[in-house]
């Protein structure tokens, strides 16, 4: 018997090999490994892990099924709370959610809840285990805007209750950030995302791509002209921010969204697709979140030397610990406590470098983290040909500005109730990044669930 304090290790692609390809980094558990890891769960009565999960998956419940080898049973338990487990098992920040609460974590490693969830979900995908469909529709029409995790979850839940749901998506592919943002090597598109979306389709949900709400039609028109009785807005927070420093419109400066969209959605890394990407030889990624890690690791795979330039220290990096660890293993260089001052541009308008300044940490700021302050006289230049700005995103004002009576706050987020998604406009609900600002997949799913509940209550009255 292995050491119960240690989790069963998960197999991964060798860092040297994976730094040159877009295949998934982590292979996940096989059934034997999963069943062994499952035995580490103490099946706590008052399971603290559940409190850490935003959609309250019955974690000991599904793990005990894995322990028995009843994987289909385990999938049913997860399915009660989550519609996209193969995705959450891969991308949830488990170390700050379910796993950080696990009792095993006090003395040793927490149970590998995410990896177990992933195993169960992948098993269900491979064995074509389907969610249960509503027996018949109830005749009520609901529109969902956006096909990211919040929209997909809301649509799936409503379809299970018998609603006739149509999802409208602005882009040509479904999945939101899951397809255009998070790279293939972390979340395979064909094997995982497409298949999870197929399951939502099998519940009877209709999808219309290439429809930009606010341009192709509006929420008011959907309700008045196309007879949708309620609308859920899950349009995300897709608008990139820039720093406003000199040189930012030079060639070779990208938002992380553009860089990742070219690579993920338009598959620029694959020669058989037409979209070009300026790969870069020496790249700086400015920022320290998940998005920055994804952009950095994408640039690395396209053949560049990559520096992550972040103004605080390692402890404050907002990215998931696993991603930072993987990035380092692959050879990403971290220039911490460093902040850009200016992008240096050559005579043809291309990036040739960046002027940066060293920082030190001062008093805590509003976010509770210590505020970085410049060290006077510490400026220096670095040579670069590409800069990727990854400073966060905010919601697109398009929907709010074209919908009468829809209230937003000063961060441009749509105002909505947390427990049912109700907005300031009757029969219009919202959730996910469009309401909270950029957050996580599982929180967006939780908001989609709440929205479905709110819509069901409103239309059942």
């Amino acid at each position, binding site marked *: 018997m292995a050491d119960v304090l240690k989790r069963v290790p998960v197999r991964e692609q060798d860092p040297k090999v994976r730094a040159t390809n877009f295949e998934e980094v982590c292979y996940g558990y096989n059934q034997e490994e999963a069943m062994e890891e499952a035995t580490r769960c103490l099946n706590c009565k008052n399971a603290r892990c559940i409190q850490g999960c935003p959609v309250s998956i019955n974690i000991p419940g599904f793990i005990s099924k894995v322990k028995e080898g009843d994987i289909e049973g385990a999938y049913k338990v997860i399915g009660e709370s989550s519609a996209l487990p193969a995705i959450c098992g891969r991308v949830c920040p488990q170390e700050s959610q379910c796993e950080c609460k696990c009792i095993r974590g006090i003395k040793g490693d927490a149970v590998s809840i995410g990896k177990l969830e992933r195993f169960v979900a992948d098993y269900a995908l491979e064995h074509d285990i389907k969610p249960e469909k509503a027996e018949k529709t109830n005749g009520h029409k609901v529109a969902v805007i956006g096909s990211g995790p919040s929209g997909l979850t809301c649509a799936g839940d409503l379809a299970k209750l018998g609603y006739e749901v149509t999802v409208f998506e*602005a*882009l*040509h592919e479904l999945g939101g950030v899951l397809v*255009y943002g998070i790279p293939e090597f972390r979340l395979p598109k064909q094997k995982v995302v497409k298949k999870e979306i197929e399951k939502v389709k099998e519940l009877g949900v209709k999808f219309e*791509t*290439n*429809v*930009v709400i606010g*341009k*192709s*039609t509006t929420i008011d028109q959907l309700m008045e002209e196309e007879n949708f009785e309620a609308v859920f807005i899950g349009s995300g927070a*897709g*608008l*990139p921010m*820039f720093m*406003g420093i000199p040189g*930012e*419109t030079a*060639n*070779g400066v*990208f*938002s992380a*969204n*553009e860089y990742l*969209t*070219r690579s993920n959605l*338009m*598959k620029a890394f694959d*020669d*058989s*697709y*037409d*979209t*070009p*990407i*300026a790969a870069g030889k020496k790249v700086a990624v400015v920022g320290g979140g998940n998005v920055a890690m994804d952009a950095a690791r994408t640039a690395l795979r396209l053949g560049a030397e990559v520096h992550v330039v972040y103004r605080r220290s390692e402890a404050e990096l907002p990215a998931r610990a696993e991603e930072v660890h993987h990035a380092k293993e692959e050879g990403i260089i971290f220039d911490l406590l460093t902040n850009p001052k200016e992008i240096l541009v050559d005579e*043809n*308008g291309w990036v040739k470098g960046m002027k940066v300044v060293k920082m030190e940490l001062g008093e805590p700021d509003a976010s509770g983290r210590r505020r970085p302050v410049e060290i006077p006289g510490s400026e220096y230049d670095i040579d670069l040909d590409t800069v990727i700005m990854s400073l966060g995103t905010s919601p*697109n004002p*398009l929907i709010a500005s074209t919908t009468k009576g829809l209230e937003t706050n000063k961060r441009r987020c749509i105002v909505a109730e947390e427990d049912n998604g109700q907005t300031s406009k009757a029969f219009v609900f919202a959730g996910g990044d469009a309401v909270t600002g950029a957050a996580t997949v599982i929180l967006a799913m939780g908001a989609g669930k709440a929205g479905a509940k709110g819509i069901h209550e409103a239309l059942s009255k």
Partner: protein
Amino acid sequence: MYKILKAEKLAANIYLMDVEAPRVARHCEPGQFVIVKMDEKGERIPLTICDYDREAGTITIVFQPVGASTTKMTEMKAGDYFRDFTGPLGCPSEFIHEDLEELKKKKILFVGGGVGAAPVYPQVKWMKEHGIDVDVIIGSKTKDLLILEDQMEAAAGNYYPCTDDGSYGHAGMVTTKIEQLVEEGNKYDVCIAIGPMIMMKFVCLLTKKLEIPTVVSMNPIMVDGTGMCGACRLIVGGEVKFACVDGPEFDGHLVDFDNAMKRQQMYKTQEGRAMLKLQEGDTHHGGCGQCGGEN
């Protein structure tokens, strides 16, 4: 899927298509654009809406082969389908919100260059439909490249074709025609110029001198067209604007054209590679010295 109802070659290097896209046709206005994508692996290509028929649910696009994707598009025929056709995107031209009586008092000059004649046409037609006669200058390299002549002639108050080589109409660039019209005593209240960036730049330099407020339609590189990527950013009046959501039409006297033109060059080398691959097809396996041999 979006069906092509008509595909026509307008001139040596310019193509027109009518495409079935009822949602776009129901909501579009002059000045807006669409993004088309031919197939699974194609690029997202922004194109101005050149005409629309709300009843038939169709949109007319006019395009010029520039890179690999637009070159492949020239082979599409009536009956073929676009995989994706999104729109209308961008803001409608400002004049459609203006008070009609005020607008009627104005003397308006349209300037179109090359394929830019196509996006000028719906605006001229809109004016005609609202009882406003406008002056229209259309420039091209040579007579054979002039497009939509009959339509333009019918919709414009005065129509002035120009050719660089003097093979037809006014001999010379559109800017020399503007100067001539102004010298002849025409007083314009507003100029709307659409064409290659270099043309718009020179028109703006001239109209600034002549003190004619000028609107231009910018066509930077775009990816999503919804404000999500920032690829289309321009400097307008010292501020960064996203052409796909803040534009594509801007005050031409405030646009930083030099920066915009440099940004448009960004994919020159990669694009050259894609063209090479297209022309040589399966026979291109490196060693050409152009693409580093990795393709």
